[in-house]
């Protein structure tokens, strides 16, 4: 896929990373278009978390560069839902305080912080008490708080590392709808890691399939299903064809 510079929100060039001498990435390139949702689908340990950790500036890279419309990651507003969401919440703050935190850091006035918190709680249909501490919440509840925290600041770029892994059936469904709406509305460029192929297709503008280590791109699939994509979309012929293509690539490149 070739994009004009103006359209690109994230540019990754020549990315290199090795752990203990064994390379995970050796010269990886990627461009993500502004406002796109990029889903990354790949086997365990292929380097998905490593990739977004480097993109988010949390992990030093061995080489290459990652730029956001020419800027460093420190210059942009980022949202991140960690794969280990449990350890990323602050246990000394109540859930609500955890969500307020990035908004405070952004300097939002108190009134607006409360308003956004209210809005999030409603849209996420939170049924538990946000005034509890993270360790008093169930796994899924913690993950939900994590997602709310990441969205609270309306980031320019959002990284979601298996954000639905602990959510229940219903919440997952409603959150897919919600995210679609919010991300598209606000034009947030998103990288989503998911092990659920249907979910990846339903949510993404583009699906990147990665191989095992040493990691390369097995396929780069544009998903041009119409938005919004309701549950019914799962049965549409376009969807079925895409899924079949992906499964095919997967069988050949990954499972082999």
């Amino acid at each position: 896929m070739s994009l004009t510079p103006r359209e690109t929100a994230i540019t990754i060039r020549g990315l290199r990373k090795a752990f203990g001498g064994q390379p995970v990435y050796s010269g990886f390139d990627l461009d993500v278009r502004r406002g796109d949702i990029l889903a990354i689908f790949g086997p365990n340990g292929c380097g998905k978390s490593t990739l977004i950790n480097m993109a988010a500036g949390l992990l030093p890279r061995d080489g290459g560069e990652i730029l956001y419309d020419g800027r460093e990651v420190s210059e942009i507003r980022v949202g991140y839902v960690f794969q280990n969401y449990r350890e990323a919440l602050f246990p000394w703050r109540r859930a609500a305080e955890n969500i307020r935190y990035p908004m405070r850091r952004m300097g939002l006035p108190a009134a607006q912080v409360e308003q956004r918190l209210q809005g999030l709680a409603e849209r996420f249909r939170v049924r538990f008490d946000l005034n509890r501490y993270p360790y008093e919440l169930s796994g899924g509840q913690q993950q939900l708080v994590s997602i709310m925290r990441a969205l609270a600041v309306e980031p320019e770029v959002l990284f979601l590392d298996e954000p639905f892994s602990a959510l229940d059936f219903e919440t997952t469904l409603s959150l897919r709808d919600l995210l679609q709406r919010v991300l598209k509305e606000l034009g947030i460029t998103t990288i989503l890691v998911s092990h659920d192929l249907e979910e990846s297709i339903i949510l993404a503008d583009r699906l990147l399939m990665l191989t095992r280590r040493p990691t390369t791109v097995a396929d780069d699939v544009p998903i041009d299903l119409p938005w919004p994509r309701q549950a019914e979309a799962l049965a549409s012929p376009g969807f079925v064809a895409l899924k079949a293509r992906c499964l095919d690539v997967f069988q050949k490149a990954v499972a082999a």
Partner: protein
Amino acid sequence: MRALTGPALGALGFVLLWQLAVLLRVADPILLPPPAEAFAETWRGFADGTLAHDTWRTVQRTGLAFLIASAIGVPLGVALGAQEKLYRGVEFVVDFFRSTPASALFPLFLILFGPGEGTKVAVAAFGAALVILFNAAYGVINARRTRVLAARIMGASGPRILVDVLIWEALPQILVGMRSGISLALVIVVVAEMFIGSTDGLGHRVINAQMLFESGLMYGVIFVAGALGYALNLLFILLEKRFVHWSGR
């Protein structure tokens, strides 16, 4: 209420052990008087008000020294812990002075602070600050990385991460450090009261009792000092129960 039974039993057991040692005549009663005698003498000391005054002076000095030590040790320790390389640099000085007897530092501090109150409080504050700093730094060095990363992602600057994450992550160990620190401050204050320019304080009283061979009173005063140490620690035990609700989860 129930929280107090443990310590109370501990203190009781300790006194019983003492009594047992006396009964077994581990040592001559001149050296190790029975607890009853020590308490009687101590009680007399409190009754005529002088011992209460001495205790209060020691508490004041210890408190002041500890406050200074915490005000310096906690922020500095957390900040240094966040910069491990820098910490490794000052570590020499920290370990150096942690390994030097306070009494060997008296001359130096006398030079700097003169033979008055200043020196006693300063030496104690210095000693306690080192311990607090050391623990705070280690608390931070051993903090969980994910939380720091999460804060960074949410736009927290270096100093904010210190205040919002690292201090909290290190809090259990900072409290351990503060408890070590307040005990050490008390020890140094008492020793200083023994040696440098003092007309009051528990240390002064211990030395007096020792010179007068009132070993009942001497052990009584030492007991008061130790119990005072426990009481000061108790503050932190309560603080910890109150504020470190998340530890271990």
